[in-house]
């Protein structure tokens, strides 16, 4: 029978290994499920998890999808450390894109180097403003930010639909529900000639480094951890839980808004109803896969980005439905939470005593 023993201290090897074990378990279980459903399970899992890494022409695509995931997850992870559960990054992502697009539409006939930075600033502020609502409700009225931030996501998405079908609809767009295409001064420059690799990718890596410095080297990052682990001790040490809630909500909202703006001014080049594709939710999985650690999140972002790319491959190779990607991502989150047990518990086989 299985014997469970609580470890005296969390196991460091397991802390690093458990995400890998979770990925392996997800692959194994996915194989079984899809085989049982009559698909070629072996190739399905191979297409989703391995092909994207094995074919160099897919790497740029992974990078483009990983960048927003990493940016959003960095902010979320810092909040999660402080016990601030911003589940509505998708909404802040959309609002960031809307705010940035607003600047783009205002500067439609202008040129200048300042336009893109102004859009970036608007994107960050848009995301922050959307996150400020749940922050205010939690600090002042003790309303759970989990619910309010999640519900505000749907408000943001409906607002986007309204804008692209109404006031912001491209007058030269044959009545398609979409905004004007951004001009050259409104578009994120690519870093590698001839590829999709845009400025957002190095920006995400730089932000991961900054987030790591913030969490490890500053009293602000320390405050976040204390508030999350032991609120009474934080109060005793002179840290304010309210300020931490505000700071982490605004930070995660701002980063989600930035990611949204980069996506709008990068791969999309305009706003369309297809714009919200769930990066804000997937980033929650990225944050946990990266163990809420900025450098782990870069790894997590790459894995989840690969499942998006691989999901598309699997649609053509083994005719897997598009929903399969979401299923794999959800399965991964389940496995992550399950393998978390290994960090605090030692499990071994023990023969039942007579």
């Amino acid at each position, binding site marked *: 029978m299985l014997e469970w023993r609580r470890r*005296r201290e969390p196991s460091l090897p397991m802390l690093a290994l458990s995400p890998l074990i979770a990925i392996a378990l997800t692959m194994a279980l996915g194989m079984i499920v899809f085989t049982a459903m009559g698909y070629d399970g072996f190739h399905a899992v191979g297409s989703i998890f391995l092909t994207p890494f094995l074919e160099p022409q897919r790497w740029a695509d992974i990078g483009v999808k990983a960048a927003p995931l990493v940016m959003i997850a960095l902010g979320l992870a810092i909040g999660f450390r402080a016990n601030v559960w911003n589940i509505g990054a998708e909404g802040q992502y959309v609002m960031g894109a809307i705010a940035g697009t607003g600047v783009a539409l205002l500067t439609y006939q202008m040129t200048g180097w300042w336009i893109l930075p102004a859009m970036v600033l608007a994107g960050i502020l848009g995301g922050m403003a959307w996150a400020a609502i749940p922050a205010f409700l939690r600090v002042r009225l003790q309303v759970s930010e989990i619910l309010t931030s999640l519900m505000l996501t749907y408000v943001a998405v409906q607002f986007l639909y309204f804008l692209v079908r109404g006031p912001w609809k491209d007058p030269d767009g044959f009545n398609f529900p979409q905004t004007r295409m951004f001009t050259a001064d409104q578009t994120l420059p690519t870093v590698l000639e001839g590829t999709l690799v845009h400025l957002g990718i190095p920006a995400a890596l730089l932000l991961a480094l900054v987030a790591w410095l913030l969490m490890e080297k500053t*009293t602000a990052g*320390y405050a976040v*951890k204390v508030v999350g*682990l*032991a609120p009474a001790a934080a*109060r*005793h040490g*002179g840290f304010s839980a309210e300020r931490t809630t505000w700071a982490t909500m605004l930070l995660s909202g701002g980063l989600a808004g930035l990611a949204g703006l980069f996506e709008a001014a990068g791969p999309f080049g305009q706003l369309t109803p297809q714009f919200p594709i769930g990066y804000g939710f997937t980033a929650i999985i990225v944050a946990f896969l990266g163990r809420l650690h900025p450098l782990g999140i870069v790894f997590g972002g790459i894995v989840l980005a690969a499942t998006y790319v691989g999901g598309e491959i699997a649609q053509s190779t083994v005719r897997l439905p598009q929903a399969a990607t979401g299923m794999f991502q959800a399965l991964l989150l389940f496995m992550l939470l399950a393998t978390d047990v290994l960090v605090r518990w030692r499990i071994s086989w023990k023969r039942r005593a007579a």
Partner: protein
Amino acid sequence: MNQPREQIVPSRLALAHISKSFPGVKANEDISLSIAPGEIHALLGENGAGKSTLVKIIYGVQQADEGTISWNGEPVAIPSPKAARKLGIGMVFQHFSLFDAMTVIENIALGLDEAVDREELKARVAAILESYSLPLDPDREVHTLSVGERQRIEIVRCLLQKPKLLIMDEPTSVLTPQEVERLFSTLRQIAAEGCSILYISHKLSEIRALCDSATILRAGRVVATCDPKVETTKRMAELMIGAELRKIEHSKTAGAGAVRLSVTGLSLPGEPPFGTDLEAVSFVARAGEILGIAGVAGNGQAELLTALSGERLAPGPATIQLDGKAIGQEGAGARRALGLACVPEERNGHAAVPDFSLADNGLLTARHRVPLAPHGWISRGSVKRFADSVIKLFDVRTTGYGALARSLSGGNLQKFIMGREIGQQPAVLVVSQPTWGVDAGAAAAIRQELVDLAAKGSAVVVISQDLDELLELADRLSVINEGRLSAPRPVASLGIDEIGLMMGGVHGAEAAAHA
């Protein structure tokens, strides 16, 4: 010792060669002891000596790795607390498991193994309360009761099962002297009716007053079995800590220094649901003195500490003054920077973060007075050095500054926390329960540090429920009761009965009326 008699009447409980290991520690090693029917047997030892582990084995919470347990002469296995209760073993824990918002009788009903009809239960409880003349109202809600009354609920719970062995874990740590006396007479009556009692404590005077025999543990082993009525207190203490006792040395100059902390008319509503309101608390603490604040738990001590530390702000700035500066509206960080350090009673989660290393826990409160994080940038080297110096100076037993706070024993963590605050050379140190759950050797060291800190010109305020400690340490003593603080009086002029009555306050008067 009692070999001939044991052959006729088997021991109620006999342990033979019990051993139990945890990763990295041998908690119990080759422990043997026996308890006769009706005997009050003391289990004596410092924190970490293995008392708790042994008791958990007897009560079925944990299983021994080796050794046998006999019950009335028959070898038995005790796989669970339920099995222990079935044999007739009852236990009153140090920390009660009671629901504050429920009544006494509801709490008793919840603790029973089988469902009992409410009316029948009431009758049985009433019978027990009467036959042991225990003052307790079954219909009162628990949050309105004193600690002594709460303990009686646990005792009644046990007595309902008609136990043959009652285990009492540090039962007097939070009682007033009068409540202790009452408890002892109850225990003597229970023993006289044939129930054995295993009495766990490190308070030697109590063991001498109550117990028939004593087993002394040190570092997981039995170091002596003796008759506490014959053995000297000093000798038992030395057996327990394995070294000669240090005597606290007071400085001669205490009491005449300048006022360092003054509190004037501090009133603060308690935090819901069960907080105590502070009502017009006033006192001064002078350079070079130790002011003791006695009182039974839950009378406003926690509220007073958080009001002084800055975790809750005072209504006006001048209500609290540090060296003449009004700090009532300053936050915790600002107060500490000015030299007011506080140590709350609860170590895990309040004074320290259990999941942080000692190094990071040093940063928690020391960063205001020690340059550990200049301009918000944490200097890892300084943080480690600071934690290291605290560990060395205060003899904290740990694997190093990287050890998680939760991995330390209560006493060692307390030494680290006290060291962290004292190491900052505060102008005023306010500390609640400085030696609660700390072994005798470490407690003596902590008390000496407090005396030394005062001797260097700081003012020290000690909030404690341990009267012996306050009488040993304090120059002046006041009592907190229901959020009101009595005027401090020099310790030399006070008798212990007088303090006990002050501590008991309304509850004490009620108890007297019932008796």
